Each structure stands twice: as C-alpha cells, then as structure tokens.
C-alpha cells in the first residue's frame, strides 16, 4: 500500500557534474542557494560584516530613519537595525540548522526502525506519530516551551531548540518510513539479516544510506520551518530573549507602537525572515524536484 514518497537512490556519478546539473536544471534552486550562502557568510562573519555592535545603545540617535550611516535605521534604543539583522541571521541559522538536524535525524531513525521491525513496534511507533501529528507545529512547540525551563548555552536557549525539533520528528518519521518500507524488501537487507548482522547495523549501515535523499529534502525544508517557528516564538516573547539579536524578537513588544514613526523597524527584520525562509523553502523544493524524477515537471 505504501509507496515511497520520494525515490531513494539518487544516481550521482561525480560530484562536480551533479552540482552543475542541479544549477542548469533548477535555476531557481541555484539562486536560492546564493541567498543561503550570503546569509551564512553574514552570520558566520557577523563581527566583520556588521557596521556596528548590535548591542550598542545610543540614546542620541533613537528611531533614526535609514541613512548612509544606518542603512536599516535605528530602533527605540538607538541600536543599528542592519547590524542586528546580520547578527540575527546567526541566531536564526544556528537554531534552524540544529533543531532541523535533531528533529529530522530522530524522525529518520524512528521511521527506518518502524519500517524495519514492522509488526507491533511499527504499530506503536505509528500511534505515537499520529498523536504528535494531532498538534499544529506551533502549538506543540509552545507546549514544550511551557514545559521546559530556559537553559542557555552561549547565548542560545537549548530548550528552545528542542521545542522546535520535537514537532519536526513525527513529520519526518512518516515520510522516511514510507521510503524505508520499499528498502526493507530489498534482497540486500535479507542478505544482511541472513549474515547475522545486528539490527542497529542493518538500520544504520544498510538502510539509512538509502533514505538519504528524502532525509536531505526534509532536512532543508524543515530548516525553513524551524526559522519561521523560531521567529514566531520570539515574536510571542517565548523564544529568544533580549538582548540576543533575533529577527522575530525585533518585531515583538513595542515595535508595533512605531508603525507611523518608524516603519523600518518592522519592514527590515520581517523581510529578513521572509527571505531566509523563502530561500530554504525554494532550495528544498528544487532539491526534491532534482533528486526525485517522479516529481519532475
């Protein structure tokens, strides 16, 4: 009944030609990768790229409109918005990558195990997945935020990462299980079992490499979701906390009081979120089209 949602064995003869192929077949995907690359560069080298320190308060220059000195204007504390956006990309990327990685990896392991063991174990894992799927992403994340205390390491709340990773798990598990079911019946899995390999060896060494394509697609798509979710939680005041620069946080609180006086406080951070999420979504979409001939249009 279950057919692999995405094909499982990309034929990648040589690395360089694969990248070239991707760029010619998926120009939109290549363009989105450029955006992602710029964002990563800005995030990693924020100290050198940003014109100001994002935490520097300047009460002499509050709410100043965009100018040559402050390309994005300043906020109610006189902090440079452009610099805060650059540092914010670091926050967004760190949280987006780690939570999507944790969520997708756990989900993939759960999905493969579910397909591999079958029977009772499969039933139980699927029940559990069903239960988690009955929560909208943000609702589940909010419940986890309510349950876990803040636990801050290097300016980033580790529990926030878990809160964002948990809703990703069931969604990836579902897709990977479908893909793994078709691997499960392959002769080489039977051969491995006949050779007496342990279950974990078969799962990680024999099955996992063959679901890399759906895994990668889900991983990129959920980076987008994770960045969006982090922004939403921070906007609600339940995610990243001041003074750490984060895009969602820049839109929260009293930012809305300045619709008339300082619309740039709203425009630029929101545009940054949208562009980042857009780039990852488009990249994930193109990656799916590229890796999966079934979806090719």
């Amino acid at each position, binding site marked *: 009944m279950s057919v692999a949602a995405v094909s499982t064995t990309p034929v990648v003869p040589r690395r360089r030609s694969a990248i070239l192929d991707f760029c010619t077949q998926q120009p939109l995907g290549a363009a989105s990768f450029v955006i992602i690359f710029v964002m990563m560069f800005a995030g990693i080298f924020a100290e050198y790229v940003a014109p100001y320190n994002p935490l520097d308060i300047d009460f002499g220059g509050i709410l100043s409109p965009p100018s040559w000195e402050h390309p994005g204007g300043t906020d109610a504390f006189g902090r440079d918005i452009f610099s805060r956006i650059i540092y914010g990309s670091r926050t967004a990327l760190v949280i987006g990558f780690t939570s999507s990685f944790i969520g997708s990896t756990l989900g993939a392991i759960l999905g493969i195990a579910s397909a591999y063991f079958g029977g009772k174990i499969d039933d139980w894992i699927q029940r559990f997945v069903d239960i988690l799927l009955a929560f909208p992403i943000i609702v589940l994340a909010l419940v986890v*935020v309510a349950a876990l205390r803040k636990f801050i390491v290097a300016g980033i709340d580790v529990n926030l990462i878990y809160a964002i990773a948990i809703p990703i798990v069931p969604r990836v598990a579902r897709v990977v299980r479908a893909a793994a079911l078709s691997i499960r019946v392959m002769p080489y899995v039977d051969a491995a079992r006949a050779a007496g390999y342990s279950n974990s060896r078969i799962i990680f060494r024999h099955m996992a490499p063959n679901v890399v394509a759906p895994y990668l697609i889900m991983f990129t798509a959920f980076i987008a979701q994770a960045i969006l979710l982090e922004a939403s939680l921070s906007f609600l005041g339940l995610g990243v906390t001041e003074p750490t620069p984060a895009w969602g946080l820049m839109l929260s609180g009293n930012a809305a009081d300045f619709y008339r006086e300082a619309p740039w406080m709203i425009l630029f951070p929101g545009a940054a979120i949208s562009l980042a999420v*857009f780039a990852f979504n488009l990249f994930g979409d193109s990656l799916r089209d590229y890796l999966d001939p079934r979806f090719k249009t």
Partner: protein
Amino acid sequence: MLRYTLNRVLLMIPTLIGVAVLVFFMLRVIPGDVVEVKLRGDGGNVSQETIEMERKRLGLDKPLVYQFKDWMVGLATLDLGKSMWTDRPVTEEIAIRLELSLQVAVMASIIAVLLAIPLGTTAALMRGTWVDYAVRIITIGGLSIPSFWFGMLIMITLLYLFNWLPPITFTPIYVDPIANLKQLIWPALAVGYRYCAVVARMIRSSLLEVLNEDYIRTARAKGVFEKMVISRHALRNALLPAITVIGIEFAFLIGGLVVTEQVFNLNGIGMLFVQSVSRNDFTLIQALVMLVAGAYVVINLIVDLLYAVFDPRIRYT
C-alpha cells in the same frame, strides 16, 4: 459505511487519550507552575506558606497520579475544570473567545480556497512556463512570509493609505456586519495567504497527476472540448486531495491565529493560548490542546467520509 464510521469514531478515542497523557505529563514533569508566576511574578515577597496554600487550593500539591486521575475523569465527563489563573471555568474562558477565532478561520478558508483554485489550476495547465514559475514563487512566498509580519504590513499600508487602523473592539457579525468585517477581514487575509499557498500547491500537483490518467486521454480522444475535459473530468478529481489539505489546514489554523491575533490585538483562542503558556495555566493549556487535537481528528474523519461521497470508486466497508 455505518460500520466504518463507527469504527473510525472509536479509533479517535485512543489518539485523544494519547494526546491527553502526553500534554499532562509534558507540563507536569518539570517543576514550576502557575502559582510561582502568579505570586512571584512581580518580584513580590511572598511567604512560602502562601504559596503552599495556593498550591493546595489548586490541587497542585497532590501526587501526580491523583492529579492525572482527576484530569482524566474530568475529560471523560466533559468537565475541563477551572482556569488556574482566573478561577473561571475553562469552558467559559474558551467560549467567549471561540466565536471571533472561528469567524476569522472561516473567512480565511473562503479567501484561501477561492484564490487557490484558479492559481493552482493555471499553474498546472501552463506548467513549465513563466506563469507556472510565478505561481510557484507566489505560493512559496505564502509558506515563507510569517503571518504576523504580513499582518503588520497590512496595518502599515492601511495607516499610510487611509490613515486608518482597524477597530480593536469586537462586534459580533449579527450585531453590525460592517463593523465586524472592518475588524476581522485583515487577520483573515493575513492567515489566508499561507493557507491559500498550501492549497494551491496541492491542487497544482494533483491536477498534474490526474491529467496523466487514461480517462483524460479517452475524453480528449472522443472529442470533448478541452474546457470540459479540465473542468468536468480533471478538476473534479483533482480537488479530492485538496479537500484533505483544506481540512487539515482549517483544523490547524489556530497555529496561524496564535501569532496573528497578537498583531491585531484580537482576544481570541490564539491569544488565550499564548497567555496561558506564559502563565503556566496548566488546565487552560490542556483544554486548548484537547480542543485543537479534537478538531483535527474530527475533521480528518469528515474528510475521509467526504471522499466516499465525492468519489464513487471509494467504498468503505
């Protein structure tokens, strides 16, 4: 059909119990509760005694097993308890806010479906052309632009163009429809964009799949006008998978409302949810989660049954 329906209704129960168990223990395993937020929140000096008394009053001092038993018994008898923050019955707190959120959700769905059908259809019919690319960018934009920021953009635009902002007091639609729409059409637009994008993408891909079917080739071969082939043969079948997405997105609209209500300052379910999370109001969080999960399983069931109605090939036994 009846047996299938009954079976499905019974299957909803374990899922909902699972949700109840999960939420309950996620919230209680880690220390910290409403009493601390309530009494210590403002940095006031409160004696340990007062805190213990308040905990006792709310039943938070009882062993977890007893608290869990109370919650399950309450659920079974549809008594969701009282809000730990306001002491008012949870059902009452939800009821006064449900109307607003439900109306926004319904309006958002109408907007989304009305826009998604032409968008998805044209994209599928003109696939590979610049129109298809444009629709793809518009729909991915819908998945990417946070609804709260889109809401803020709407507010800024209204402010600059008309020097006007939507009213912030809620008037029910049966009292004054104009005043009601003036307030609620904007949040409906803000959450509707994402909704529309999801549905349009689904329509596009399912229409592409249907267009490859044999019966489409047959219809064309026997000389049916292309317009008829699309509207009668293809679109009708392609809309079925879209119904699933429409249903699930509707059940999950509370997700979008959580942030959007904040922007438009609407006192709805989403706002209530955020408040109860920041106040650690366990009973209210639990009740709201059950409400959303309940909506999700019920809508899923309705969608499955609708399939049988719309598609004669599907017969449940």
